[in-house]
């Protein structure tokens, strides 16, 4: 550890570039959100966009790919680069390696964006074959994923160098959580890598005639569910490792925080069949096993809920909060950084309940592929994650640029609350119409089977979506104005690392050792996925030729 280590301007610029691409992606992707929401309310603006954007589905593809895949991946790799080097107090071991990873992600983004914008890849962000996109789409996604792997390798080398310099020292919590996130991501993305490299890419290039759509779904959801933990864990890094300090307190339990992160590594991947409960080609017994494993990943979520809330209560009481709930009011709600994360947590409470419902095996028959599902994941990725990232941005952008936020505190607070209110209205209405039977990914205004009685709920979808639109562009405005303003006040921001009530050095050593947990992760994966993967791969039949149906 270098005693006087400071993150250099070059490193800040490198992390800032990640943020730049993330914010550009989300500012383009979010243009389409209200178009979809308003379509549900009966106001279809897509016909007016015809010369540029051909269909609702092209808009939905852009919305999903840019927001859920690009915004998140760029923000996360940038944020975790900072938690790695700042936590370890040492520069990246091989900065050039990380730079290669980053620019590969950028090249991949551009490569995939061209066919999407040209309406040659209107396959939504799940790109289920035999719907066939242009090969550049699959190649671009591959480059984004491989680029993120390389950035992950750069973080491991940095950690390894630090570990050799600091034997026996507990890994700083934020670094630790970031590294687990990247390792889990590299295991999880093996699924989509197998899908694209063995089937979709050679097929789109004309090297093979057909695909096996069922096997493709199994590969996809091997990655698809842990993807949500890849989004979520960096928010947890902030909730555990930073929010307690921002709220004026300490982390309640260092060891349980680490234990929860290990459980996420262990349990995030071997449960993908819960996205395939109603797939015809997966035996019910395996679906049931994954249902139970999905329930078990609820445990680290509940640990997180307890530890984060306990840390907040500690902070609230220190700030003078009294009584059973008085500490909640005593929290610094006037700070947009804190308010964003508190509101993200509240929305995630509802997201968690919905998640348990989705995961509940046969209960899924009621909600599968209905509007309930996007209602649900807007509470997770677009609330717990995105709203936390917005809050993080309000110290991270000043930290990286050395300039104070270029808007008033009130404006940033208003941004956070606008997103929260819009999301409450939107997601509630989506859950309701989903339960009533409205399909997801469908322009409901064109669907002849939608009963008149749903129009009140569908109106709320449009109202909520429109409010969120304003919430998002207030965020983009704040970040852009701060980054570009020439005469902003200089900021003296430090990375907010929370202390723990308990000395991290007292955390048992087995909570800071990789090998046993990695072995356990691979073993559980082999048990939960191995037999089905062998069965589906050995019975592969590449009989589905491609279709362009948009």
């Amino acid at each position, binding site marked *: 550890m270098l005693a006087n280590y400071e993150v250099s301007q070059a490193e800040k610029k490198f992390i800032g570039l990640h943020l730049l691409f993330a914010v550009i992606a989300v500012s383009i992707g979010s243009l389409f959100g209200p178009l979809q929401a308003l379509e549900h309310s009966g106001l279809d603006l897509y016909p007016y966009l015809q010369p540029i954007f051909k269909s609702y589905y092209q808009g939905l593809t852009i919305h999903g790919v840019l927001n859920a895949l690009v915004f998140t991946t760029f923000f996360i790799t940038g944020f975790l680069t900072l938690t790695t080097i700042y936590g370890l107090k040492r520069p990246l071991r091989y900065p050039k390696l990380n730079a290669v990873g980053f620019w590969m992600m950028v090249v991949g983004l551009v490569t995939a964006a061209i066919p999407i914008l040209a309406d040659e890849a209107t396959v939504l962000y799940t790109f289920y074959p035999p719907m066939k996109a242009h090969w550049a789409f699959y190649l671009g996604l591959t480059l984004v994923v491989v680029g993120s792997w390389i950035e992950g390798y750069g973080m491991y080398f940095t950690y390894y160098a630090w570990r050799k310099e600091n034997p026996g020292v507990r890994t700083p919590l934020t670094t630790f959580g970031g590294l687990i996130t990247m390792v889990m991501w590299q295991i999880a993305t093996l699924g989509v890598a197998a899908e694209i490299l063995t089937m979709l890419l050679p097929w789109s290039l004309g090297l093979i005639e057909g695909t096996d759509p069922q096997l493709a779904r199994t590969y996809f959801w091997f990655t698809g569910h842990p993807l949500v933990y890849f989004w979520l864990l960096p928010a947890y890094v902030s909730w555990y490792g930073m929010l307690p300090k921002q709220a004026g307190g300490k982390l309640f339990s260092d060891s*349980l925080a680490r234990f929860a992160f290990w459980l996420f590594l262990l349990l995030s991947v071997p449960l993908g069949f819960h996205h395939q409960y109603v797939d015809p080609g997966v*035996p019910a017994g395996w679906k049931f096993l994954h249902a139970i494993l999905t329930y078990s990943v609820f445990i680290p979520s509940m*640990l997180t809920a307890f530890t984060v809330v306990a840390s907040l209560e500690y902070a609230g009481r220190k700030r003078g909060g009294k009584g059973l709930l008085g500490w909640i009011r005593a929290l610094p709600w006037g700070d947009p950084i804190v308010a964003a994360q508190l509101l993200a947590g509240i929305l995630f409470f509802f997201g968690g309940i919905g998640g348990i419902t989705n995961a509940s*095996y046969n209960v899924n028959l009621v909600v599968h592929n209905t509007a309930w599902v996007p209602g649900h994941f807007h509470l997770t990725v677009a609330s717990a994650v995105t709203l936390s990232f917005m809050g993080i941005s309000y110290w991270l952008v000043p930290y990286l640029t050395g300039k104070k936020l270029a808007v008033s505190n009130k404006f940033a607070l208003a941004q956070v609350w606008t997103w929260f209110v819009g999301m409450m209205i939107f997601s509630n209405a989506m859950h309701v119409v989903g339960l009533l039977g409205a399909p997801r990914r*469908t322009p409901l205004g064109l*669907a002849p089977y939608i009963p008149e009685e749903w129009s009140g709920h569908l109106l709320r979808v449009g109202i909520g979506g429109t409010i969120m639109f304003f919430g998002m562009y207030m965020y983009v405005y704040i970040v852009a104005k701060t980054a570009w303003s020439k005469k902003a006040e200089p900021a003296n921001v430090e990375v907010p690392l929370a202390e723990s009530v308990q000395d991290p050095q*007292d955390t048992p050593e087995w909570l800071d050792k990789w090998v046993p947990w990695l072995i356990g992760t691979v073993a559980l994966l082999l048990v939960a996925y191995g037999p089905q993967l062998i069965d589906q791969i050995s019975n592969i039949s590449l009989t589905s030729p491609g279709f362009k*149906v948009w």
Partner: protein
Amino acid sequence: MTEKQSMHIDPYEKNWIRLSIGLLVVFALAVTIAGFAMGIQVPSPEARVDPRTVADEGPWAEPGLRELAPGKYEAYVLAQTWQFTPREMTIPAGSEVTFYITSKDVQHGFKLQNTNINVMVIPGQVSKLSVKIDEPGRYDYICTEFCGLGHAAMFGTLIVE
């Protein structure tokens, strides 16, 4: 490991963990009983077909409803862009229908509104689910997976008389 190094768990948190596990056991029991004792089941592999020829020969060459016994039906449904064949079927109230659904092109979904029938339709696979409907009425079956430009208009109706 020194004596100080142990995983400190607050008593409140221990109870919280117990409560969480208890909740999950209750949920797991509920779905297990519903699934394995009451028969509310998710689909399992039924058969593989060749999507390139499935509409030309075999049961999906002439999709439709067949009566197996009084009050017992099987329905072969073919999904394609952007329609189900047949578009309409009629059964008497109180009868049980077993659906066999496949696709000749891209992926589709099949959700029979206001019932527990909700299944992916994947080329190469046969989706099988059964339902018994007592309440007379019109039950739409809608496509729930994006299948191209005409997706929103893809539906059919099961009439229960």
